[in-house]
């Protein structure tokens, strides 16, 4: 399936990635190969096959609504690139 430069730029923008011009060809080829493979799967007749929503044969794994200790704040913020007054600190949003 043919993927265009526009398609790659579009998904790159959604993923907040910058793709250099010289990388573009490589992405087009790799992404096209993935879609071609998915296209092959589309050809299989799945009529009457129940929907797979999860790969494990499990359902209804629940937790009781009981409070347990949280993570101490020093640890919460330990790996943050920047903090202020107990908050994470992030760059200008807009």
């Amino acid at each position: 399936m043919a993927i265009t430069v526009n398609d790659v730029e579009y998904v790159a923008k959604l993923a907040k990635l910058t793709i250099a011009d010289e990388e573009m060809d490589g992405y087009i080829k790799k992404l096209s190969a993935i879609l071609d493979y998915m296209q092959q799967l589309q050809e299989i007749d799945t009529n009457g096959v129940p929907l797979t929503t999860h790969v494990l044969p499990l359902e209804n794994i629940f937790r009781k609504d009981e409070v347990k200790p949280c993570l101490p704040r020093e640890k919460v913020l330990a790996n943050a690139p920047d903090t202020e007054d107990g908050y994470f600190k992030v760059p200008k949003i807009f």
Partner: protein
Amino acid sequence: MTEFQTVIGLEFHAELKTKTKIFCSCPTTFAGEPNTHVCPVCLGLPGVLPVLNKRAVELAMKAGLALNCQISPFSKFDRKNYFYPDLPKAYQVTQYPLPICKSGYITVPDADGNEKNIRINRIHLEEDAGKLVHSGESITTSNYSLPDYNRAAVPLIEIVSEPDMASAEEAKAFGDKLKLILEYAGVSDVKMEQGSLRCDVNISLMPKGSDKLGTKVEIKNLNSFRAMHRAIQFEEDRQRRMIERGEKIVQETRTWDEGSGQTLSMRSKENDHDYRYFPEPDLVPTVITPEWIEAVRSELPELPDKREKRLKEECGLSYYDCAQIVATPALAFFFDEVAKIFDDKKTIANWLIGDVSRLINVAEKEYEQIPIAADDLAYLLEQAKSGAINNNSAKAVLEEMFASGKKPAEIISERGFAQISDSSALEEAVKAVIEANAKAAEDFRAGKQQAMGFLMGQVMKATKGQANPNLVKELLAKMLK
């Protein structure tokens, strides 16, 4: 000139009343200190495993049942991907193709006062985002922002209506009713001012009679139903003028600016597939059996519509009285408690709407904290009804019950409120009054009815107002024969 018809759909987010977050055991209670109610799961650290809170599932089911929805036998979670710093994982865990509830409705009055069903498309479970503190006045003027993830992953239900509302009034009626139902069901605190209930509006205009929907605009940042009502009216007007000028409505998200009373453009609305939803692999599907549904249904109290009907039909209350009581769940539940012991429901309603409400307001308390016990109020009303105390004394007793928390019997005896209803005790006083007021007694015998009032007043004075007035009248009539 073309006449236009407004088409409104609403989306509500309600925080569920659980003790812990949706996928971890952090508390949902408000924490003043930022980032103290978080753990590796709700921070989205690598390698953690979220586990669904069973209570959150049950509260979502309750909401669904209370809103006449079908509960899905099979539901599951998905990831909704977008980048925003209030989202620690850069995706929100929500439900996309298989939500927990579908196809419900709420009944509201329409413009002509007839009943109208507003359909609910779906209710899905999801996690809340964190809160951002901005360094400057607003997000755009800030050099940096400060995320606090205490609220991140608090369980939410999103309730999506069909575009069935035709006016700001209908939208507000839907909002009021939804809020009341969720409050009765015990699903959420539904406090808009605190953010536990939030509302977004989708609104478009189309020529009257058309079946082709216009381009819709989403309005966010509505902090009250009053704001919602104003925003809808503003937007109806803005869109109508644009269409009349031949301009094209842009599909976008707008924010309500309370100060200037207008909606302002935020950003064009991304299409659904831009969120790149995909199944959440760390959570397994939820299977709900009919037995489980019935167990949850049995936890629901009587809901507003049914309750209003019952109060009207069984208790003979007026429309006004019913509406007053049903509008406040805590008052309605208290009414039921008192009515179990004291059977004059009309009297209970009058006292609850009257003096009890007044005293709660004076004390600046919430109805959830009525400081008197139902059986104490029942006792007091019984005393007033039987004539053991008079009505004014009963009011004074209630006031003191509120103030001191004492039992009514104690207050009645301390303040000497008990009416004298023993005729032998009263005969003496009545006899003395007749002797001391021979002229009035003569007048009465001569047929002057007004003299009775005067004599009664004298007896009440002599007994410091404690004589049972009916008995005094009876005794006077007998002795003056």
